[in-house]
């Protein structure tokens, strides 16, 4: 049973509440994909750093 304090006052969530669409079996795919993107970005940053250092020592 709901506490009396919850009755007769406006809600905070707002209606209607829409269900989040279920996407089966995606958690691992998304995690791997996002990490792979991060890794590639890191590789590009390393490449840029290497090129800068090469230029500096030329």
């Amino acid at each position, binding site marked *: 049973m709901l506490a009396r304090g*919850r009755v007769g006052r406006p809600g905070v969530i707002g209606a209607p509440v829409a269900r989040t669409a279920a996407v089966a079996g995606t958690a691992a795919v998304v995690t791997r994909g*996002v990490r792979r993107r991060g890794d590639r970005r890191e590789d590009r940053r390393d490449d840029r750093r290497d090129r800068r250092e090469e230029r500096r020592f030329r």
Partner: protein
Amino acid sequence: MNEEDLDELGPVDYLVVEFPADKANFSGEMASELSALVKRGAVRVLDLLFLKKDPDGSVEGFESHEFDDSELGELRALESELAMLLAEEDVEAIGAALEPGSVAAVLVWENVWAAPFASAVRRSGGQLVTSGRIPIQALVAAIEADEAETTEGV
């Protein structure tokens, strides 16, 4: 709550998790993970409610104190801090989205970790323009597009 506390209030989020009635287990692992987040200071639990939707579509709400310790486990310790933000109107709105014959837990929490950053932004003269959550479908689409590009580039 004084003015300083209000300045330090982090963004408040909610989630609803639904279980078929015969598979509900609110104790154990879920409680322990949530409790760990609270102990680390990442979140503050502001409200916790349980809903039951009968096969005929009627919805009933339950407070956490209506369960015994063995059912709630570590969640019991959070009960004293609940701010009871959800109203009967919210229960009706959430209940309408639930599958008949299911039970659900509704959790409202403050992202405590974000509060100091938000305060720093305000003190620096910045103001929030928008915020939101990127849908998982959009992430999947971005990753798929990325992979298609990589494959074409080979």
